[in-house]
């Protein structure tokens, strides 16, 4: 029996839901509305109220019906006759929207001064909800902005909810806050304060703190409490947002650092060689990404948005090939002379940088920003979760996972670890150490190329760009210890976060100075880095 009852209730609810729009549509007495528009000042006021209601909550058909009416009244393009009214501009009957001419002696309703303002407002409200073009809606919003106190509560929220244009939507929301704060009804203002405090931002803080000068702040204790409460909540929100934003920027910087340093760390651990050309390999990775973009523009413009993804294998292969060539031609002869290999790799760095400068010029490259690295999601306060930084972070995480898998789970990785731990013993048991060196150098260089790809949506790309990352990347290697992935990750996170943390306080230069001093101090305690393999000091 209970079940039957429930079914009946649900069915009833469904019926009510389905019937609701129809009921509302029937609720709008179109003929009555037109009659009121043609009536005296009082009737016209009632009509305005009906139209306002339509702008806020009526259904789409009714709103479309209402859109031309307020404008027609203002412009005196409404001809009232015995049968109702005609919109003279289009020559349509106001009620049925069938073409007809006004009969008899038509009368044009005249707006009183008070009603004129109301109708301007109503017209804008209707246009904001129902105009097809974004520009028209923006113009309507401008009109509404002039008298925020007259905007009916709820209109802007409804408009914001249905607004497809993101920029206009943000404007509408801002105006909604301003309007609610200046409303006449104190309860509405307090509600508005609570709503604003839900979305803390610096703009909201200025808006709310301006209210302490409002007469109501001194007069009404409730209002004062609400303002103070909102200020405190917004302040907290901003603080949380700032912390999150700093952490997020630090994380993205750390991702780039990690990508730049992981190749260095592998090579350094394996061969004791620091590759001063790593920065230029990063730069070449970015240039290859750009070339892929330019190539797609010519060959397959429809795929242009996906150039960042398509460039991944190409950037890796090109830079890895350069690395392998470098190892085979130059570094192979220098393993016993690591200091000379510093000079040799610097020569390569100089050569590559100037080659790129001669071929491509010194200007910054222009990159398309595909949709998946555009914009972001505002989270709290001024913290925006931007997709371009997320791209770098996700890229670094995937690279970390793949590199880790490669080093820990494949025969090649086993060889790399064996040679890193004891080159002579590895050679004795038949590991081709020279080939492992070459392939590992290729891997490290390829990772640098991927770093270049990952940072191209965030940083500017030019022949000198490698220099900006390389010294930080060296510091990551020094801090992390020789040839450990975990050390590189922790050191990159640490240096990235500390840099970003200090920067807003004392500036970027102070951040670099402090990071360097901290590393030098740290080396006093652990000269071999964070995650050095325990053993005899070499």
């Amino acid at each position, binding site marked *: 029996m209970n079940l039957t009852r429930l079914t009946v209730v649900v069915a009833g609810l469904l019926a009510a839901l389905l019937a609701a729009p129809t009921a509302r549509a029937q609720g709008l007495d179109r003929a009555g509305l037109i009659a009121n528009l043609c009536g005296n000042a009082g009737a016209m006021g009632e009509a305005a109220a009906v139209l306002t209601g339509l702008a806020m909550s009526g259904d789409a058909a009714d709103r479309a019906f209402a859109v031309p009416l307020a404008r027609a009244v203002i412009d005196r393009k409404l001809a009232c006759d015995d049968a109702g009214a005609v919109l003279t501009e289009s020559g349509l009957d106001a009620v049925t929207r069938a073409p007809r001419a006004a009969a008899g002696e038509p009368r044009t309703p005249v707006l009183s001064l008070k009603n004129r303002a109301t109708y301007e407002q109503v017209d804008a409200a209707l246009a904001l909800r129902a105009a097809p073009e974004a520009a028209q809606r923006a113009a309507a919003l401008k009109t509404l902005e002039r008298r925020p106190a007259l905007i009916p509560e709820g209109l802007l929220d409804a408009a914001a909810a249905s607004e497809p244009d993101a920029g206009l939507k943000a404007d509408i929301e801002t105006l909604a806050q301003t309007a609610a704060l200046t409303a006449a009804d104190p309860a509405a203002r307090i509600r508005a304060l609570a709503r604003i405090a839900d979305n803390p931002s610096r703009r909201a803080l200025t808006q709310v703190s301006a209210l302490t000068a409002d007469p109501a702040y001194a007069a009404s204790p409730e209002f004062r409490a609400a303002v103070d409460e909102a200020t405190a909540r917004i302040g907290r929100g901003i603080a949380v947002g700032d912390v999150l934003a700093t952490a997020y920027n630090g994380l993205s910087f750390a991702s780039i650092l990690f990508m730049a340093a992981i190749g260095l760390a592998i090579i*350094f651990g394996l061969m*004791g*060689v*620091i590759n001063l050309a790593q920065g230029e390999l990063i730069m070449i990775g970015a240039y290859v990404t750009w070339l892929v973009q330019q190539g797609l523009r010519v060959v397959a413009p429809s795929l242009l948005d996906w150039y960042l993804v398509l460039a991944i294998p190409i950037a890796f292969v090109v830079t890895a090939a350069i690395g392998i060539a470098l190892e085979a031609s*130059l570094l192979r*002869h*220098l393993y*016993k*002379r*690591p*200091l*000379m*290999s*510093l*000079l*040799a790799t*610097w*020569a*390569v760095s*100089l*050569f590559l*940088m*100037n080659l790129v400068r*001669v071929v491509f010029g010194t200007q910054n490259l222009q990159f398309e920003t595909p949709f998946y690295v555009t914009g972001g999601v505002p989270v709290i306060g001024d913290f925006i979760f931007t997709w371009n930084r997320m791209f770098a972070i996700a890229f670094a995480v995937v690279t970390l996972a793949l590199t880790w898998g490669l080093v820990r789970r494949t025969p090649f990785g086993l060889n790399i670890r064996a040679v890193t731990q004891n080159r002579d013993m590895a050679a004795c048991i038949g590991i081709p150490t020279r080939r492992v060196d070459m392939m590992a150098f290729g891997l490290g260089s390829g990772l640098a190329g991927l770093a270049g790809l990952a940072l191209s949506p965030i940083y500017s790309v030019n022949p000198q760009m490698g*220099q900006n990352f390389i*010294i930080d990347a*060296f*510091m990551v*290697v*020094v801090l992390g210890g*020789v040839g450990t992935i975990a050390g590189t990750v922790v050191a990159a996170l640490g240096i990235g976060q500390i840099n970003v943390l200090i920067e807003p306080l004392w*500036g*970027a*230069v102070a951040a*670099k*100075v402090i990071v*360097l001093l901290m*590393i*030098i*101090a740290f*080396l*006093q305690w652990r*000269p071999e880095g964070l995650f050095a393999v325990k053993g005899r*000091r*070499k």
Partner: protein
Amino acid sequence: MNRFGRITHTAPIVHLIALIVLAALLMAGLAGTEFALSRYLANAIGQLAAFAVLAISLDLIWGYLGILSLGHGLFFALGGYLMAMYLLKHSFEITGTVPDFLQFMGWKEFPFYWDGFEFFPYALAAAVVITTLISGLFGYVSFRSRVGGVYFAIITQALVYVAMLLMFRNDTGFGGNNGMTGFTVLFGWPMGTSGMITALAVASLLVLAGVLAGCNWLVRSRFGALMLATRDDETRLRTMGYETLRLKLIVWCLSALIAMLAGMLYVPQVGIINPRVLSPELSLEIAVWVAIGGRGHLVGAVIGALLVNAVKFWLSFAAPEIWPFILSGLIVLVVLVFPNGLMDLAKFKLVRPMGAKRLAADMGEARP
């Protein structure tokens, strides 16, 4: 070579010192006559001499101690900046010229730490003290924790890079990114005259000769033998009871002081100092001069610095854009074919044997 691996033939270095002194005397003697060098040439010789002093400073620790510094530009710049401070303050005292950077920042007077820089002895003392302090502190913390090899090289590089970023700031009171320029008076004499240019060049040559003689004496002494021993096998030396920390620290500070001296000679001759002197590239270039000339040979360092910079001077007029390519080509050539730089040419009998047998290729470079 004797059993310490020291070069026992004395001839080349004595010849070189004699040549330098002779050149200095000739320049001084001919000044004002029709045989005098052109201003440009005299100035170039003076600058080259300053670079040669800088190369010797690096060779002292890299060639004889096996420690590569990629941040020697820091000490060069220290000398340069403190000399420039003296020159500006001195010029201001005498002619009342207000330095550009003060006007640029809108400051009415020199910051307090410029006090006293109008006296050269004070500026010199400040340079010596500050250089010793910085190099001593950095050397102590690095050598104490036995940071060496590639680690040391890249940390020194980071040091000079950070110093460059610091000096690029305009609010430090050291000229910011425009640096310091507009020196008008030196020791009461107007600058930019032929006489002053010649005098500076002669002074640089004499300092070069002095530094060369002093370092030659040092590396031939018992102390020099310990330096080579540290380079070749530090662990063994420590096992035998020698304290290498103090030794390394002394040579490191001495090297920094020589680099500072080079900077003090350099700045009045080019008439400007700016943060680009602190760029990691310049510090790497110093290592390249030494590598090309031949590590572990004072003569080699001088010749390397003179050759590379002479080519650079010449190319900066003829074809500035190909200089990086030539430099990188030279480095690769030296690194792959002539590990001891020009000293390797001796074995092809292209130049007179300079007493150097080819040193072991892996001289003094243990894997980190």
